[in-house]
């Protein structure tokens, strides 16, 4: 008799991580994100290495005699901006702002969305009607216009940016999770938990939350790049991260005045911004495919039909 190797059980999370591991685009995206995170953490190292602070001005060496910023070279690897500041050091510090605001705003939006969406669907009735109308109303607002008005009123700051971005994103998450919970709240196993005497909180956290967690994760991953873009847009318009703190958005706003003489002001922060949003979107798409086998199936069926 040949010994049979024990088959290890593979849960949904394990399956998901295995599938991600086979997706080359996802691996590249994760590598890009880790690199950006590493660079962001090591930002002071770049400042020490070059000897240039993120807000430090080098009027003598960074600007030519007629005030034009100096291009990439030995002293300033990625050139200088219009105030004689080191673009490399500022791009590196900008990564901190982008990642921090992007991740915090997305987490806040997903947590608020989950709380509202799950409780609306679970309790139903008047609460559901009220919360659903609220979500519809938030979703039907011209968000950038209102975000600008709000930031202008309270005075722009990094914290306000996080709150504003989360405020305009939670409703989308809430609506999707509400739909999912509505579908599972009548399932037998939930009924069984109820019959066994489990309370509302226990059912929501133990029975429902793990089931909707993949959706929440997919949303969080896809919200990060859009939040990073939102922050950059607010900063670009002068209502996000206030100067002199470098953010890719306010650096690109500075680039507007110099685009004819200093392409590096546009290229480097722009490339950094595009690389990070692209990486998160690629990762988000592949996380969604991994958690949503239905999608894979519909692709296969469509293919069979069209052939």
């Amino acid at each position, binding site marked *: 008799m040949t010994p049979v190797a024990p088959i290890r059980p593979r849960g949904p999370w394990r399956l998901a991580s295995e599938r991600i591991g086979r997706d080359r685009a996802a691996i590249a995206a994760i590598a890009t994100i880790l690199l950006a995170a590493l660079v962001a953490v090591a930002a002071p190292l770049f400042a020490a290495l070059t000897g240039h602070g993120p807000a430090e001005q080098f009027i003598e060496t960074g600007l030519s005699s007629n005030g034009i910023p100096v291009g990439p070279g030995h002293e300033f690897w990625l050139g200088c901006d219009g105030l004689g500041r080191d673009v490399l050091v500022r791009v590196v510090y900008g990564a901190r702002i982008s990642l921090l605001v992007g991740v915090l705003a997305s987490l806040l939006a997903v947590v608020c969305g989950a709380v509202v969406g799950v409780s609306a669907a679970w309790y139903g009735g008047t609460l559901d009607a009220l919360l659903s*109308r609220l979500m*519809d*109303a938030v*979703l*039907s*607002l*011209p*968000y*950038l*216009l*209102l975000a*600008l*008005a*709000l930031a*202008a*009123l309270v005075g722009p700051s990094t914290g306000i940016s996080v709150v504003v971005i989360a405020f305009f994103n939670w409703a989308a998450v809430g609506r999707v999770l509400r739909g999912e919970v509505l579908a599972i709240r009548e399932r037998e196993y939930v009924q069984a938990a109820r019959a066994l005497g489990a309370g509302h909180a226990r059912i929501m956290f133990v029975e429902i939350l793990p089931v909707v967690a993949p959706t929440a994760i997919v949303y969080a991953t896809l919200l990060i*790049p859009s939040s990073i*873009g939102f922050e*950059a*847009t607010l900063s*670009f*318009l*002068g*209502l996000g991260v206030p100067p002199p703190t470098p953010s890719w*958005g306010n650096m*690109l706003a500075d*680039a*507007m005045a110099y*685009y*004819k003489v200093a*392409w590096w002001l*546009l290229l480097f922060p*722009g490339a950094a*911004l*595009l690389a990070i*949003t*692209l990486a998160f*979107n*690629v990762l988000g*798409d592949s996380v969604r495919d991994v958690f949503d086998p*239905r*999608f894979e*199936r*519909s*692709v296969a*069926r*469509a*293919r069979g*039909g*069209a052939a």
Partner: protein
Amino acid sequence: MIGLVLRRAGGGALVVWLVASAVFVCYFAVPHDVARLIAGKQASERTVAAVRARLELDRPVAVQYLHFMGRLARGDLGVSFVTQDSVRAVIVRDLPVTASLALGAAALWLSAGLLAGVVAATRPRSRLDRAITTVALFFYSMPPFLLGQLLLFFCFYRLYLAGVELFPPGSYVPLTESPLQWARFLALPWLTIALANGATYARLTRSAMLDAFGEDYIRTARSKGISERRVVLRHALRSSLAPIVTQFGIDLGTLLGGAIVTEVVFGLPGLGREVVQAITRQDLPVIIGVTIFGSALVVTANVAVDLCYALLDPRLRRR
């Protein structure tokens, strides 16, 4: 059908009222001295008091609120602190620019996005599908203000240096003055919005179509021997239009209230740039007026979307 229209319109009016109230609370009820803001830092106490009296800021908040809402109901959005123009006149002046930008771009992104999405969905996993998906993801990830700056750099400045003056930089010529110049000046801004939004629509169309292809009624349609072209266009695309129509309503409504980023990058004198300038000048009535106007547009667009649903899906008409 009429009941549906009335219910949706009522809901829309409610949202506009909520936005207007929220704006009122933000600007008039929070403790910062609006009269001092208008009169300027150097103004004497008497001037500030006069401004306060003229704007009724010395009256109780409830009275101010009723007056604010009363003026709003008559379409009176107040007067700019800076230029003394009525906000309604400002909107009437700037709207043609924004509308030219939004409607032109909408035509481009809707046709390009739908076409790309349908082509990709009917050939899943093919080389063409991969190419479309990749390009769509690229422009979907690019913030529009960055895309606008890149287009300005390459399509205006680099071409200009090379001696080709195809696209002029930021300015605006009314359609009534010269249709050709109008289109030339708007070409790059149109392209900016169309690429950014078209990418979203291509992604949306592709995934909605793939979902539809998995449905039983598509199999039924195919087994009846209907041509593939008809299956794709009449059966799959029609049922995939719902999420696209929703998105389109919100996007068009939002843009008509000010294509903020594109107008700023290309220096177009539309509603969006007006708001950004009003914010730097602390011109509260303009900010408030355009915000309420923009919200009303989005809400109107949403009501229109609901009516489109009823047209697309006969089941909804009976409710």
